[in-house]
């Protein structure tokens, strides 16, 4: 059974379609990445999945419970970490955890809270107001509060935004530890390195799910050719290449350029034709996930116009 199985989800605000016919599934115990540009509908989709929003059409199951009729059961077994810190800043760390533990009817709740505080290493600071914590600690507290009731499914909405690299690394280690114990995780993110830490990824843009699969499947599925171009006048070359036939994107990577196109043959012809005139050398490279996403974004921006 899949932890998440939703079909044809549609969510509209007025005449704006925020989620457009999204069908996706997340297998039990897997870490699934949810990617897409700002305003692409990630948060809305996650909110529909945890019962915070009702879909205009479409439906499905989360943890085997129907999205429309069994929202209460879903809420009991799902942990949802919001994008913005949404615990009570005027309650202390311990009081926040007390509140969550009791709402989930954990018994004896004090013991759960004590264990959580211990794991977090916040026992000595438990009387501190949550509002006075730094961004990284708020994120850790939020995660701890979300998993206190041992949910089967964890929904994380851009959990690492504004968190330093070390805290991000630790955060992901924890996510992997949780998944190893059988928890299913759906995590939305902007970061490519985080996407590569997921078992599978889903790419959504302007409400449309454009790709799903493992990182390699998504890269292969995009059918892109990437050439690495090296030369002296890298900036001039970049400018010149941009408008040539077969070139979809040119992105600088250190001293080289990644030139990406959908048609490998046309692209290599173009590069061959201009290599002498512009004084560069080139070779076929690996298409990265980022190249694929930028391609997706460029394409869907075209579709919007």
């Amino acid at each position, binding site marked *: 059974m899949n932890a998440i199985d939703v079909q044809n989800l549609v969510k509209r605000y007025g005449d704006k379609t925020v989620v457009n016919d999204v069908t996706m599934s997340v297998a039990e115990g897997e870490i699934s990445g949810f990617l897409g540009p700002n305003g692409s509908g990630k948060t809305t989709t996650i909110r529909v999945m945890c019962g915070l*929003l009702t879909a205009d059409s479409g439906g499905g199951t989360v943890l085997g419970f129907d999205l429309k009729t069994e929202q209460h059961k879903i809420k*009991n077994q799902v942990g949802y970490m919001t994008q913005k810190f949404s615990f009570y800043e005027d309650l202390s760390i311990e009081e926040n955890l007390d*509140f969550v533990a009791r709402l989930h009817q954990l018994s004896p709740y004090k013991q759960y809270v004590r264990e959580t505080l211990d794991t977090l290493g916040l026992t000595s600071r438990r009387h501190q107001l949550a509002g006075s914590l730094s961004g990284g600690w708020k994120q850790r507290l939020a995660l701890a509060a979300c998993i206190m009731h041992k949910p089967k499914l964890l929904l994380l909405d851009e959990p690492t935004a504004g968190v330093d690299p070390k805290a991000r690394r630790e955060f992901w280690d924890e996510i992997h530890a949780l998944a190893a114990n059988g928890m299913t995780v759906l995590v939305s993110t902007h970061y490519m390195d985080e996407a590569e830490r997921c078992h599978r990824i889903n790419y959504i843009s302007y409400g449309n799910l454009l790709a799903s699969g493992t990182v390699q499947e998504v890269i292969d599925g995009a059918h892109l050719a990437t050439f690495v171009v090296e030369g002296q006048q890298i900036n001039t070359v970049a400018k010149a290449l941009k408008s040539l036939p077969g070139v979809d994107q040119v992105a600088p990577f250190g001293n080289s350029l990644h030139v990406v196109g959908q048609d490998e043959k046309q692209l290599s012809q173009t590069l061959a034709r201009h290599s002498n005139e512009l004084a560069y050398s080139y070779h076929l490279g690996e298409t990265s996930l980022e190249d694929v996403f930028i391609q997706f974004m460029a394409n869907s921006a075209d579709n919007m116009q």
Partner: protein
Amino acid sequence: MNRFFSLVRLLALLAKETIQMRRDHITFGMMLGVPLMQLILFGFAINNDPKALPAALVTNSHDQYTRAMVTALEMTGYYRFSHIAVSPAEAEALIADGSVSFVVTVPSDFARRIERGDRPQILVEADATDPSVASGAISTLSSVASKAISRAQGLEAQLARQKGQQLEVVVHKRYNPEGITQYNIVPGLLGVILQMTMVMMTSMALTRETERGTMENLLAMPATSLEIMLGKVLPYLAVGAVQVSVVLIAAKLLFNVPFAGSMPLLLTGILIFVSALVLLGYTISTVAKTQMQAMQLTFFYFLPSLLLSGFMFPFRGMPIWAQYIGEMFPLTHFLRVVRAVMLKGADYQAVQKPMSVLLLFTLGFATIALLRFRKTLD
């Protein structure tokens, strides 16, 4: 695990709300300080039957009749002659700028005309911009003045004989024989103070969560609409209880307002009223999108309820349509209960009707709030 209601979850919400309320020092202090401050301020300040109003006397004659009349007027307690023997022009200026509320003009031939047996006229000009200021003072005027003159003439005995056959009207002011405004105002203030704090605080209950972004989290956790509502309003019942104690004790100690009726009956009435108020506030918070809107809605409700409930002006004195509007405010019905029980010593039979209406308000607001509450962010 109960799907609709769990005591454990309610207790969690109650604990959280109580801590938040306690930690918001300014609001918490306000909830306890406001009732006392308002009670003292309004209790002492508002007076529907004002006494010792400043008056100016315009006269040229210094005869015994004028003196007798002035003394008699001052004896009523309504007049205090702050300006004596001013010119008509000065008097005009005094009443125009509000320095005096009355100008009493005694003609220069006043004494001569009395002795001649004419009916001399004196002119009393009253500043009637606030009718309630003038009414009491004016009503005492003519009888007091003519009695004073008769006495000065030594004709009192004769006058009494003459008027012996005339109708005598005996007025008893009941429940508040001395006509002490505070007896009316203080019980009313209890209702007004409760309404002010209870509705305002609870009207922000949900909008505060929405504005702080905590609503999303709260809704994602398994708390039901009923639990959230009770969690939000019950702590305010406790605050209300404190306010009630403060006001009732102050009413007794500071204003000596009589407690004629049964305390349990009064407290029952108060409990129902406060429940109606917190649920009204909560209903407002399900409608408002921001705390600012909640505040505006609350004030939109306050003013008509103050003016049309019978707190400020006599309810029966309003036109019928205004009375109908007045009936829509819980405060109106509470005022009937509290005044009847405190001042008249009414029993349950006598206040059954307003009590039932208050109960209906409570249930009505709770239903609307539960129906309006969205368990999603749509």
